[in-house]
């Protein structure tokens, strides 16, 4: 299966801008399906970005983050060619990891 994470990291001088898009249903647990049954909550709880062995950004999410979440942030101290590791875990224990090269 293709990775659920799409990430783009671009270095501009000292600052690296990161944009990430993750495929995830982010079910709130409040929505009913076609049969009128509640769809149980299923959402990403933690999303982590690591670069050069250091956490550069950690997100704790609740159910109020939109489906297929998008996130954008910037950090200092990385250069072109460095690896950026992205990983998430959800409330059902599923997880995914990907590594992107900073361009």
């Amino acid at each position, binding site marked *: 299966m293709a990775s659920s994470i799409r990430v783009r990291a671009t270095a501009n001088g000292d600052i690296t801008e990161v944009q990430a898009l993750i495929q995830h249903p982010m079910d*709130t647990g409040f*929505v009913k399906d076609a049969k009128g049954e509640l769809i149980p909550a299923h959402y990403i*709880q933690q999303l982590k970005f690591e670069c050069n062995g250091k956490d*550069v*950004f950690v997100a704790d999410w*609740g159910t109020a*983050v*939109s489906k297929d979440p998008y996130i954008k942030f910037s950090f200092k101290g990385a250069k072109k060619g460095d690896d950026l590791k992205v990983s998430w875990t959800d409330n059902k224990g599923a997880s995914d990891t990907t590594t992107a090269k900073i361009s």
Partner: protein
Amino acid sequence: MTTLTGPSATRRLILQGAASVALLGLGNLPFGAAPARAAANDKYPEEAFKQKSEADAIKALYGKTAEPSDKVKLDAPEIAENGGVVPISVTTTLDKVTSISFFVAENPNALAASYRIPVGTIPAVANRLKMAKTTNVVAIVEADGKLYSATKEVKVTVGGCGG
């Protein structure tokens, strides 16, 4: 309890001791525990996400209250046609930012997202949140151990929490 002999007297002493230790512990709490909770806590704040109201969620997450600040800039649309996807971003000119959190006041659970900002990361975040109905969005920035907030009302035409 039928016997009032040696062992039970010792027991009472021990209990007294325990009680005074507990009191001491409570007395220290406001000084010791609050910064520890804010700094480098790697655990997912499960309790804060369960709180219904915004005030309770802020208390559970940070253990203190925030003051409004014009150094926190919250960017959100005036009107969101689809409450399921509301683009919201925050930037701040404050120094020593350690975390940024988003609250949606009248969602079933007020805390939407909380971001930890390590040293070297720019204190600016953009994301997309769900909103149940027209209400206030609050961004809280934790900088140098203090909390600063910015609030903006977003009108929602179609709610994003189903039901």
